[in-house]
């Protein structure tokens, strides 16, 4: 494949999926700047590995799998690296003003978003992929590298945990 052709294809993928990828990472990391950095890293990796994509029909789950891997690596690193944790907190304070204009969460969903953020990462991921992104169980299996039964049971547990989190507050179902 010509390099320019590959570049254009990856940029069209960015136009199609970047918004969803950023929201996916943002809901997992709860930090806009990290989500932006990791979205950037995701699409650079998509470009570098584009020639190795086996089935172009599965491009969506392939991109989400890359985003999942990059985010999990980041979270693992963050757990180990205390310096990064503090610099992340500092950056969060510094950038609070710009954040407001970069990403907006509808006020009526703030509580639901926060409750989702309190779940453990694996629960958050499965809820995002299955219920928000509307992916099938099979696609979710491919992205997370889990078995079908694990996806189903984790989703059930995650929704139960989410319900419990919401009942702690005063979330009113519409």
């Amino acid at each position, binding site marked *: 494949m010509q390099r320019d052709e590959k570049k254009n294809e990856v940029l069209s993928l960015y136009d199609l999926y*970047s*918004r969803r990828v950023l929201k996916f990472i943002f809901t997992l990391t709860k930090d806009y700047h990290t989500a932006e950095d990791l979205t950037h890293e995701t699409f650079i990796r998509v470009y570098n590995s584009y020639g*190795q994509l*086996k089935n172009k029909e599965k491009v969506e789950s392939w991109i989400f799998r890359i985003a999942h*891997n990059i985010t999990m*690596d980041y979270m693992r690193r963050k757990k180990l690296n205390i310096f990064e944790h503090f610099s992340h907190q500092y950056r969060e304070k510094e950038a609070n003003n710009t954040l407001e204009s970069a990403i907006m969460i509808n006020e009526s969903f703030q509580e*639901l978003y926060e409750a989702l953020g309190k779940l453990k990462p694996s629960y958050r991921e499965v*809820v995002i992929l299955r219920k928000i992104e509307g992916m099938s169980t099979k696609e979710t299996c491919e992205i997370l590298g889990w078995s079908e039964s694990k996806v189903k049971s984790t989703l059930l547990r995650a929704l139960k945990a*989410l319900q419990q989190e919401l009942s702690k507050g005063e979330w009113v179902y519409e």
Partner: protein
Amino acid sequence: MSNQHDHNLFKDVKNLDESISWDPKRQFELRKRIESEISNKKRERKLKYNLLPITGLIGAICIIIILFSSSTLLEESVELGNTSGQQFAEAELQVEDVLTENNKTYTVNLDIEKGSECNFWLNNLHNSYNYKYKVYAPDGTLIGKSETAKSQERLYAVDLSKYGSGVYTVKVYSPYGNIGGKYVLRVRNF
């Protein structure tokens, strides 16, 4: 009541995505950043191609130096009884590689006289833990698939006496699409 709650919860969760909006200006800025980085990569690659003949020349000089000063290595291999240097490589396998195609196969000659039990393992050196492998006996029978243990893929304690001595095949593949990255494959019988 609970079902009604579940239904509403699904509906609310589904709408959460629409309730988060990303500033299109920031999205466009990030696109430009990615585009410029991709273009820079092309330039870097061009530079790499220009440096290739020089690196090749330096490599050739290094090989000549190594060949002339390899007397110590030869002495060691004579001590081990591997004068050709090939016998040791045939009995066990250790390879560091990058998957560039859908899969890659390696062959290793295993002798049950040396040991009837064998361990196969692969370390994913990149962060995405993606590669797996299958092992085939000399007659082509599938012996087994690797099992994941974090970044490592293992197939331990294979009883070679069932399959006999001969050339075993290890096929490294990526079940979810190749995303690049190095790995080390090792085979050892004892």
